[in-house]
């Protein structure tokens, strides 16, 4: 293992976060706070409890997931896309670094940021609603696993994208809608039966449901299924990354 390389890339990526504090931390926190004001306070006060939880508290796990997904993807995607775009990727490609080490460093840094961001949003949420976390370790487990999985997805997007438009395409056009429709703001049991079935094809449902279970002990699908699905996404991501580095796809000519 080339630990020096992992360390170098990891800290380089973390330093980038601090250079772009506005966009990496402050803006997601502000937008989440806005969701709380609009959905939690303004509208939420007129909505009854969902699954025995006040609406403001009910949306916290979903909002955290929403930020977690979009931020881990865009962080990781940008982290690998940018060196590719300006050409500095030549250095990592010519260094004695294996793909496992590259993934650990880049995805690790993006996941660290996403996890930290999730916790910051959680802290922000406590200013608006009363929260109780029934299974804090499970919550942390889901937080970290989701961060890693979607940082991996972002990493893959960053390698695949050959322009800035594609870089934004997946987070904006796929992940955000899936997160909104995945039960961030409602329990899927509130949907008509047909749409409940359709919703089960949305992978984000499993993430949000499991995460919400960690908070309130209520979930749309059994928590073990949520856990299993998260693991499946993680494995799928790892397999794709393995293929990318084996073939040199979009990285080597």
């Amino acid at each position: 293992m080339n630990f020096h390389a992992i360390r170098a890339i990891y800290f380089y990526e973390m330093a980038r976060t601090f250079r772009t504090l506005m966009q990496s931390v402050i803006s997601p926190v502000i937008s989440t706070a806005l969701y709380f004001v609009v959905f939690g306070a303004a509208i939420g006060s007129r909505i009854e409890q969902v699954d025995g939880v006040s609406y403001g508290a009910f949306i916290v796990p979903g909002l955290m997931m929403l930020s977690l997904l979009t931020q881990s993807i865009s962080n990781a995607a940008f982290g690998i896309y940018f060196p590719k775009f300006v050409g500095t990727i030549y250095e990592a490609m010519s260094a004695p670094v294996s793909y496992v080490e590259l993934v650990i460093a880049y995805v690790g840094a993006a996941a660290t940021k996403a996890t930290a961001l999730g916790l910051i949003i959680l802290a922000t949420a406590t200013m608006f609603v009363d929260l109780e976390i029934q299974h804090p370790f499970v919550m942390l487990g889901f937080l970290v696993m989701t961060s890693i999985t979607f940082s991996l997805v972002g990493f893959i997007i960053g390698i695949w994208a050959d322009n800035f438009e594609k870089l934004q395409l997946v987070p904006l056009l796929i992940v955000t809608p899936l997160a909104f429709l995945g039960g961030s703001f409602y329990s899927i049991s509130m949907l008509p039966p047909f749409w409940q079935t359709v919703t089960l094809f949305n992978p984000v449902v499993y993430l949000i449901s499991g995460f919400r279970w960690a908070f309130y002990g209520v979930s749309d699908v059994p928590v073990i299924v949520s856990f299993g699905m998260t693991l499946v996404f993680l494995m799928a991501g790892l397999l794709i990354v393995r293929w990318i580095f084996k073939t040199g796809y979009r990285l080597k000519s």
Partner: protein
Amino acid sequence: MPTAAAISISGLYKTYDNGFEALKSIDLEIRKGEIFALLGPNGAGKTTLIGTVCGLVQPSGGTILADGHNVITEFRAARYKIGLVPQELTTENFESVWATVSFSRGLFGRSPNPAYIEQLLKDLSLWDKKDNKLMTLSGGMKRRVLIAKALSHEPDILFLDEPTAGVDVELRRDMWQVVRRLKEKGVTVILTTHYIDEAEEMADRVGVINKGEIVLVEEKDELMRKLGRKQLLLQLQDKLEEIPDTLKERGLELASDGYELIFTYDAQAERTGIAGLLEDLNAAGIRFKDLKTAQSSLEEIFVNLVREQQ
């Protein structure tokens, strides 16, 4: 100098997906401690060849050893030995010089060594810029930073892909100085260039690549000697309409509207024929006001080689 190979390439070829054959069966051995200049016109395959050695391009076939290590199966050991300065000035704009060079050292698996980095930056006249952000540096300074990055992990083999493209004269001289110092330290330097004077100035050996094939590899001095023709240029007092019959067999050329005679000869030959020529000129009543000799440069040799191949 030991003659063991720093880089040993055999049967290397690269065909891109679109069918373009960038490299066609390259065999090349680069000796330890030498400065090897790889010459070739644009698109000849210079950068592709370097890319295959450094891991940027996947070879379609053949083997490459760097200091005895296969660059694919033992990529760690091989790449540890190699530093690469790319052709394009690609730098992270927001990083400081110190940070980016330290980053490179880590990336290549070396533990931090501030003293070494300090010396490196001083050697490259970058020390007073160490805290500057890269975006504030001039092109020449950025080039130095790229060299510092490539040397940050103390490689034995350094690839310089067109180190002086678009660089001013002064910096070019500096760059040559840097390369010479590296050679003194025992670093093998492989540089690509299409400035022939650069190769002529610095290289121990010269390889010429054209259309993905190595056309020639030769000691530079040997190459100059073998292919170098000397010319005697005579500036005439009076205009000469045509070469007199008595001089025709000497293979003279008339130039500058008849005011110059060019005599090409082999400088290595026993008898160059200069003395006889001058006597004949005298006999023919042709007077000259000045004369000089010129040796054909590597550039002409190169142009001839590439043209012959076409």
